């Protein structure tokens, strides 16, 4: 510095020294004047959640309420898309979040991969138990006898139908179909075709919304898994369900249905949605559908309610299956290797309290997974059918994805079966026999590999 300055003219040197002095003095003064921020003694935990939009705002409201409620823990909420992949990689890399939102149907797969922390002891200490929940939602987080996840917002499904269209074709808008046979008859009445055979409107179609291609067998009393080591994909009840799907292809033309479906637009959350624009008169949908009706099809709610929800129909010869509903749940987990599991559970406990749960579920327009519901929850809930969606999962006929780790692969295989049947590429019998023959060895191999991993880990543990 001095050497560099020696070459400068005196005036410049003086200016430079003055400037340096000014800078030094101002730093000193600002340090004296500024009030240092209070030191943050709180434990920061990270929470990855998949929701965006109004559902994201809802969870943020709960997180904010938790952060305000105490001064020991601060939850940093991060919205993460494709959460299942990122959670996989972050956990494998040893830097998982402290809490993560996952779907209940992925829990067994993540447990098999040892990615989640069991919550049994923490639940017991906090007094959280099965009696606090609607059973089907409690079971969603339990796998191989241990608790790995607790439900956040649940979903149950019901038949949604368009009352205006019912009126248009002379059906009673207050009398939804009760049996599958009635559903077929109503659907025929509601379907509209142009003279050239092109479909303008369908009464009911299995491919819409097309999210639960695996679920139809359950509506007929079928199962996908025997509870142990056998898949039961081609059981008689499942076959009957797929025969039912095939009957629509025969009746309306497989190609007609497919072309019609492709014309419905690809975006669910848009006014293009088949149900919202009145091109699909009846479909199976979940408790959340009300939100999208209000947002994208306000004409269906005003001046009078133009849609309704009812339990999904059952086969006329199986009245014992009445009130069947497909349930699923978003849930929270503590990944293995999380840095602050105790603080994470503290937050989960707040979230799972009646206050936290009702705040979240109300803002997301869903029902609560808890066994107790406050009267205010119903009073303030915007969905006119909220009690139906809450009551349906309590039925004995409520069902959920089978808790097996191979589920994602099985789900994709069943989607392909659905399309093969719908497009008449295979008969239902052939399609189901084929998928059973293909997936059963895969399932056995999956179970064998899990045992292999456990043996290998057992050896390492003994070795230590």
């Amino acid at each position, binding site marked *: 510095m001095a050497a560099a300055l020696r070459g400068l003219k005196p005036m410049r040197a003086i200016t430079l020294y003055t400037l340096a002095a000014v800078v030094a003095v101002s730093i000193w003064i600002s340090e004296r004047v500024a009030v240092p921020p209070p030191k943050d003694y709180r434990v920061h935990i990270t929470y990855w959640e998949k929701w965006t939009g109004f559902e994201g705002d809802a969870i943020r409201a709960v997180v904010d309420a938790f952060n305000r409620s105490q001064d020991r823990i601060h939850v940093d909420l991060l919205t993460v898309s494709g959460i299942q992949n990122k959670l*996989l990689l972050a956990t494998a890399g040893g830097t998982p979040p402290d809490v993560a939102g996952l779907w209940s149907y992925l829990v067994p797969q993540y447990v098999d991969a040892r990615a989640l922390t069991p919550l049994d002891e923490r639940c017991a200490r906090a007094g959280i138990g099965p009696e606090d929940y609607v059973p089907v939602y409690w079971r969603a987080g339990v796998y191989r006898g241990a608790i790995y996840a607790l439900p956040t917002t649940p979903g149950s499904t019901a038949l949604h139908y368009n009352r205006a269209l019912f009126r248009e074709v002379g059906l009673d808008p207050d009398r939804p179909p009760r049996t599958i046979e009635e559903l077929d008859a109503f659907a025929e009445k509601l379907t509209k075709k142009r003279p050239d055979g092109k479909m303008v409107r369908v009464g009911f179609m299995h491919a819409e919304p097309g999210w639960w291609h695996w679920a139809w067998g359950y509506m007929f009393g079928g199962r996908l898994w025997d509870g142990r080591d056998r898949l039961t994909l081609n059981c008689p009840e499942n076959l009957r369900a797929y025969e039912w799907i095939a009957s629509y292809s025969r009746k309306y033309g497989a190609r007609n249905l*497919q072309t019609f*479906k*492709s*014309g419905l637009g690809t975006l669910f959350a848009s006014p293009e949605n088949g149900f919202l624009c009145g091109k699909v008169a009846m479909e199976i949908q979940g408790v959340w559908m009300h939100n999208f009706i209000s947002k994208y099809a306000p004409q269906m709610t005003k001046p009078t309610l133009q849609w309704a929800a009812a339990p999904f129909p059952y086969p006329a010869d199986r009245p014992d299956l009445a009130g069947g509903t497909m349930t699923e749940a978003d849930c929270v987990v503590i990944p293995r290797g999380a840095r602050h599991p105790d603080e994470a559970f503290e937050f989960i406990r707040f979230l799972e309290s009646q206050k936290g749960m009702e705040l979240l579920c109300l803002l997301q327009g869903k029902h609560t997974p808890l066994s107790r519901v406050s009267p205010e929850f119903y009073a303030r809930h915007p969905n006119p059918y909220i009690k139906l969606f809450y009551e349906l999962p309590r039925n004995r006929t409520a069902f959920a994805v089978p808790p097996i780790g191979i589920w*994602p692969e099985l789900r994709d295989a069943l989607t392909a079966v659905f399309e093969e049947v719908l497009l008449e*590429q295979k008969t239902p019998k052939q399609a189901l026999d084929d998928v059973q023959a*293909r997936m059963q060895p895969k399932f056995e191999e999956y179970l064998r590999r899990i045992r*292999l991993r456990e043996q290998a880990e057992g050896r390492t543990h003994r070795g230590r």
Partner: protein
Amino acid sequence: MAVDSPRLPSRSGSNARRETRTALLFALPWIIGFSAFLFYPLAASIYYSFCDYSVLRPPVYIGGDNYRDLLRDELFWTSLRNTGLYAFFAVPATTATAITLALLLNANIRGMAAYRAAFFVPSLVPLVAMAVVWQYMLNGQHGVLNDLLGRVGVRGPDWLGDPNWSKPALVLVAAWSVGHAMVIYLAGLQDVPRQLYEAADLDGATWWERLRSVTLPMLSPVILFNVIMGIIGALQVFTLPYVLSSTGSPARSLYFYTMYLFDNAFVYHKMGYACAMGWIMFVVIVALTFTALKLSERHVHYGGS
């Protein structure tokens, strides 16, 4: 290390060693990057292909079980067949389109630069955006393409909804974005010696004879290069079909090899299985490239030789 006084390489041993050391030092960032991010993962993936590996748990060596299971896996063969069929049609289709466009754009008319740019632009469209746009254009009910076909009295198929039409539809989309190959062909065309055309003219050759006997033979090394790159690209097709339908809908007619590989690795947590698939694809690509090189020996003319 004076830049302005280049010295001849010294023959003395210590100097050579020092230069080697300096060279290695300069190459070190690359060597580290290559080893950590390319060589190690490649080598590890060979090992993992012989393991049960879910990413989340340590790999367990299981010998050739993954390869054995793959050979018995019907979906493996389905995805391989889909990919093979797609490549079989997409490579000739894109090659023909690119050469035709390049020949047209090689003409000497006003505003050629603008035309060339116009035909190159599709290659700049991100694949995801392209997939979404084509999804609308190929829509069976309201699609632009079927609307145009309807005007000439043809009832178009449900392109992406009919298993018989979904692969041709994908080939069509692939043929639309051939800009990169087209530019390479164009450069190749401008390298064809003018005197060859003059000689052909003197012999009274028609445009077809000129194309067949002068242009295509002189272009053959470029064609070989583009075809090999095309085969590799077609066998690895992923983004376009994945955006159209991640399950390869309808009825898995658009379920390609890389999609099954991706699902195994990141959705089904079978990383070892996916690694085995990756290495099988590697062998297939090497074999096809080698075959293409061998088959082309007699048909490719290098100007320099």
